[in-house]
Structures are given as structure tokens and as C-alpha cells.
């Protein structure tokens, strides 16, 4: 950390923390609320995450991806809580190999609303939702996602591939539903 001249050490740490970490507060909260589903649980999770981030801020290297670092702390806090509550959901078997053949892929539907896209995202398994959000919204690299989730990079790629397939199926179903409703009118 680059010290600010004349500032007390506590104030220097806070100044850097404020500059590096707090801008990510909104995105971190959205991520937490998406997976927790309840506002009070998301608030608890985010506050605990930031407390741990503050306590371990000496280990963060400025200039590296702070968002990825915060998400890895958040996941760690969350999985500890789920373990403590014995609510850890069994991990679905994920095919770690990329498909040998490329099956027929229906074209991506056009004209879906933001709400329909998010609703479709919610219907796919959570580990796939997570990867898609980290990749598309947080724009983490595969390496950063692998570090944040503590999984191999190959698993990141295969889960992303599978997640997108599942999302596409949900979007097509949604689009067919919209077309049917339109025809009935």
C-alpha cells in the first residue's frame, strides 16, 4: 500500500480500503442477494464479508482484481455458514469434459426482456448461475473465477459451457411461451 504522508496508520489503511473495496459494495450486495434470496441474509453476508476483508486487507495486493478477492471471501463466508447450518446442498454431478460432439443448438431467441432473461437464469442450477454471473457480469478471467471458487480452470470452462447451454434452453422455452401467448391473443 502506498502510504499517505502525514496520516496515522489506521487512517492510511482506511483510505486505501475505502478507495479499493467500497466501490464494489453494490455489486457484492447484488451477488449476495441473488444467491441468498433474502435481503436480511444478504446484508448479513455482505457485512461479514467486508469485516473479514478489512481484517485481512494486508493480504490484498493493490492493482489486482479486488472484485475477485471479495467474491472469494464472500463464498468462503457463505459456505462456512451453510456448513454450520447443515444446509449445504449436494453438488450436482458436473460433466467436466467438454462435449465430444456439438449437439443441435437452437438459435438464441430475440426480443426477450431483462426480467425474462434473469428469470431464465434463476431456473438453471446454482453452480452454473454463479459461473455465468462471474464471467459476464463481474468479467472475471477464468483464472480469477477458478481462484474465487477454488476449482480447476477446466471445471470453470466446462461449467460455463454447460451453464450457457442450459440457459439457452430456458430462454428458448420462455420465447416459445411468449410466442404461444401472442398467438392466442
Amino acid at each position, binding site marked *: 500500500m502506498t502510504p499517505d504522508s502525514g496520516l*496515522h496508520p489506521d487512517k492510511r489503511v*482506511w483510505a486505501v480500503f475505502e478507495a479499493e473495496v467500497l466501490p464494489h459494495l453494490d455489486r457484492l450486495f447484488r451477488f449476495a442477494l441473488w444467491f441468498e434470496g433474502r435481503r436480511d441474509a444478504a446484508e448479513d453476508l455482505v457485512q461479514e464479508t467486508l469485516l473479514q476483508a*478489512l481484517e485481512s486487507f494486508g493480504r490484498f495486493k493493490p492493482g489486482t482484481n479486488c472484485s475477485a478477492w471479495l467474491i472469494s471471501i464472500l463464498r468462503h463466508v457463505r459456505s462456512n455458514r451453510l456448513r454450520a447450518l447443515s444446509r449445504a446442498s449436494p453438488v450436482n454431478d458436473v460433466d467436466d469434459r467438454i462435449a465430444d460432439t456439438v449437439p443441435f443448438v437452437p438459435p438464441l431467441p430475440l426480443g426477450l426482456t431483462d426480467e425474462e432473461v434473469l428469470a431464465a437464469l434463476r431456473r438453471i442450477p446454482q453452480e452454473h448461475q454463479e459461473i455465468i454471473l462471474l*464471467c459476464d*457480469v463481474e468479467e472475471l478471467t477464468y483464472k480469477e473465477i477458478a481462484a474465487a471458487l477454488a476449482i480447476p480452470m477446466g471445471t470453470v470452462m466446462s461449467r460455463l459451457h454447460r451453464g450457457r447451454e442450459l440457459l439457452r434452453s430456458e430462454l428458448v422455452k420462455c420465447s416459445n411461451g411468449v410466442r404461444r401467448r401472442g398467438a392466442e391473443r
Partner: protein
Amino acid sequence: MQCREVRELADSFLSEQLLVETNHEVLRHLDGCLVCRSEMAARQALRATIQRAFTNAESLRMSDEFRDDTVSRLRAIAFPKTRRQFFGVWRYVAAAVVLASAAGTEVFLLPGRASAAARDAAGDHRDCAILSRLGQKPISLEDAATRDDASFRLLQNTPSDELTTPAGLVRVVRRHSCEFHGRRFAHIILQFQGQLVSLLMAGDDGQRIDSGNGADPLPHLAWLSPIDGFTVVSFKTPGHIVFLVSSLDKPELGQVAPFLADPVYRRLARG
């Protein structure tokens, strides 16, 4: 490069994860393949939609109160040492002033020793207001009034949710009843100048819980030695003791303490 291979690499291409040479091969293929180009454009559009939808979803938005509350808590944790250093000096200055005064001067300047109740109040401020790490979840003031101490009910609206003082706005963040080391408090968490202030009321050990006779019209604020890096001031009402605990400096807390103490004192005296 064939269409099949391009589709397998599509996600990595859009995430800019491919090696430079592979990237160029994909681009060369897309240049000449309308089908793959359309597919890639559709995937790109979907990616952008997910990003936009997630980032703008109103249902996922964090409240301003939560943001302010979180920043206040983090700041309170980031600065405890600074407060201890400041009050370490202040305590010696205050003691020197007292010693220099003539005998018989009332010792209001010398910070009082912390009682068990004061230590519990500081601990509750730290574990409840700042860290939200109490072993037992807080309960409503109404429930606590029914179960333990009817006077807790009086703090449901006192002090008011927003208080304008000459030093600035004081805002109530939360009201509840919580327990620390077996001592039950009525706890009002306030925010002033970006810092949290706890107003904590408990039954006064050794006093009867009834309205006292000849009570002073104004509360008498007693400033205590800092506890755990926090500034602590207390006042008594018939049957209760009330603490104000904060990471604010004594001068800062001193600007708002009378405005918080006065309505609480008068409300409790009325019964």
C-alpha cells in the same frame, strides 16, 4: 478452423480468454462464415443482456441505509487504536486538572471507573451495533417490555427517529432489546457524522425500579474512562442507567449527548 471448433471456443473468445493466435484463427473463420458470425453476435447480445439486467435490477439494489450502516461499522473497527491513544492522553490531562484544583472540588472532571454495567454496554455496542455478533438475536422493545422491563416500551419513540442538533443530524438506525453477558438492554443504534452511537438502557442494580422523588430536571452526564477504545458517558434515571457509547471522540459525542439524554431522561421520569 471448422464451425464446430469455433462454437466450442465461442465462450472463451467472448471472454477474451484465448491465446492471441487462436483468437486470430477464430476471427478469420468468422470473417467467412455468416452462420458462426450470427451465432457469435447472438451470444454477445445475451452476455450484454445478462450484464445489464443484473446490474440494473431494482430488486437487487442495496438500500442507502444499509450502505451508510455498513460504512459506519467498518470505520468504527478501522479506528479503535486512534481513540485509545487519544483518550490515554486525555485521562492524564483530566487527572492533572483535578489534582491542581483545591480540595473539595467535586470530581466531575476525573473520568469514573467503569462499572460492570458500563463494560457490558461497551461490549454490547461492539458486538451488536458494530459486529452483529451477539449469541442471542435481539428482540423487539415491546417483547422485552412485556417480559422484563415495562420501561423499555417508552423508548420505542424516544428519542425521535431524526434529531436535528447544532452539530448535525442524528438518525435512528435500529431499536431493539438485546442481551450482553446476561444483562438486558434497551438498545437504540443511532448514526451521527458517519459513526454509530449506541444508547443502551438497563435496570440500575441496587435501585428500585420506580419513579424517584425529587429527580433533577436535567440528566447529569458522567463521562467514564474509555472502554475498549470507545467513548462512554452515562446518566441515571429513577431505576435505570443509560449509556451512550461510540467511537466518536469525546468532544464530538459531547455535542449530541445532551440532545439524546434529555428527551430519554424526561420520558422515563414521566413514566
